[in-house]
């Protein structure tokens, strides 16, 4: 005997981008359509080192469920991931490793610094801790909190989605972006 089938009627579809549509077709710009697609299928790379990593685990867990925002799959290989989620303290010993992981990611790539330590060093103002990961790699979104609540991490991811959605496809070729990477010594 089969179980009664229940359909989820609460599914929220992504909004159609602006464009010209007629019967059987829809025309819009690449920017918008690719932005929308990217936005809703981000592959995060969790770079969890300490306490924030545990809160990140809670974010992935059943109660908060990061998968609702299209980030179902945690990729553990930098080559295939879009968003680098740095959760936790990055010590100076770890700095080069983080940079290496960032370099291994393919463009377009985004970075979220989750928690006070990743953003600014947090309470660990000591000789061994990197005072914010933005000293070694560019960061797109900072999430505050020590550790941030799962809701805050979700908001950080949503902010990234906003960025992804609105980003011009040519941004990565712009002089501004090149200068930014140059300032970090990344070619």
């Amino acid at each position, binding site marked *: 005997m089969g179980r009664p089938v229940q359909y989820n009627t609460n599914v929220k579809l992504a909004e159609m981008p602006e464009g010209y549509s007629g019967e059987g077709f829809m025309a819009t710009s690449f920017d918008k359509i690719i932005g929308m697609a990217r936005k809703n299928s981000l592959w995060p790379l*969790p*770079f*969890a*080192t*300490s*306490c924030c*990593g*545990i*809160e990140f*685990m*809670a974010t992935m*867990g*059943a*109660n908060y469920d990061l998968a609702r925002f299209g980030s179902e799959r*945690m990729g*553990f290989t930098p080559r295939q991931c879009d968003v680098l989620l740095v959760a*936790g*303290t*990055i*010590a100076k*010993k*770890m700095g080069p*490793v983080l940079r290496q*992981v960032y370099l291994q990611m393919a463009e377009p790539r985004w970075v979220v610094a989750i928690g006070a330590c990743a953003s600014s060093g947090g*309470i*660990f*103002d*000591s*000789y*061994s*801790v990197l005072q914010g990961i933005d000293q070694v790699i560019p960061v797109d979104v900072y999430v505050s909190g*020590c*550790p941030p*609540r799962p809701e805050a991490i979700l908001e950080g991811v949503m902010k990234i989605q906003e960025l992804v959605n609105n980003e011009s496809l040519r941004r990565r070729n712009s002089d501004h972006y090149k200068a930014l990477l140059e300032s970090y010594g990344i070619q």
Partner: protein
Amino acid sequence: MSEHNQHIQLSDESVAKQTTTLNLGPTHPATHGVFENILEIDGEKVLSAKQTVGYIHRAFEKIAERRPYYQITPLTDRLNYCSAPINNMGWHMTIEKLLGLKLPKRVEYMRVLIMELSRISDHLICNSVVAVDTGALTGFTYVFQWRELIYEIYEEICGSRLTTNMGRVGGFERNFSDVAWQKINKFIEGFPKVMKEFEDLFTRNRIFMDRCIGAGPINAERALNYGFTGPNLRAAGVDYDLRVAEPYSSYEDFDFKIPTGTIGDVYDRYLVRNVEIWESLSIVKQAVQKIAEIEKADPAQKNIFYAPESDKYHFPPKEDVYTKMEALIYHFKMVMGEIAVPPGEIYHAVEGANGEVGYYLISDGGRTPYRLHFRRPCFIYYQAFPEMIKGGLLSDAIIALSSLNVIAGELDA
């Protein structure tokens, strides 16, 4: 040999041995933290491992020398962040021991309650992660809902989920709210069913057993020599538990068993932790009952949540701070860390979720410790890892690491 291979230099030795060097970590997804192991493997068999630690060294001990006593509690949170309250309470107990404070029974039972809840949450992480590493994600997502409830209880008590900064010298910063008690009762009622299901899913699961039994074993003698404590030592067959050996915070009033294993492999560690979860749950129940008895005998006890003689070390109520001069002065002095602690040298240890968490404190009477050293169980027992995985399979090494429950924050201090 194809042409492009020619410039790769291989020493004669490694060609003859045909072994592979595998860099496991520091950001390997299977290591759950930042541990680097350079493994020498022959096919699937691990021949040797070289460890590197310190990837999140945060200089706790140096920072502790520059912080007044109450500001060190947040540091202890971040040692073993899976069971932060145990570290908090251990630190408070160290200062209380230094001051010679005696706590009321109700406060001690409240502490026991919280410590056991956090032990449950820590063991749940460890065991569900072992299950994840054997390929079963279900248990993990399932028990995490109940860990969320424990976090909610913490939140009710101290306002924070993970890094709790819970309690003060002499007791708690505030009394448990009614909602907290409701949530504790909800946990006591609902959790056994879930835990039972979790156990049913894994304990006698043929695949799980085949993966775990015999993986990463260590015998009692080696374990003691390596300084193992906590569940990992008990899994090797030594029934040593600080809660019994040197009872603190009125653990002697509670009735609980200390589970032990036999060969100290992954399966033993898993079972020991599972039984400990049940025992902790029983202690939580007993604590709730004992607190209820105390309150029944003397309703005035309901408002006792710190030792009366610890007034000097306890923040005055917030209303008083805003309305009364003395309270404001006290509050100010305390925040500035001007409350002196007598000079002395003390070692106090509590049974953390991973083993003996020790605080070696030298006070010279100043506002900050002269020297504070944390005995971090992970740091000490993680050095046995290469010996445990030697000769085993690579996949055994992964589950051995997760079943040791090495917490990077505690390891690297």
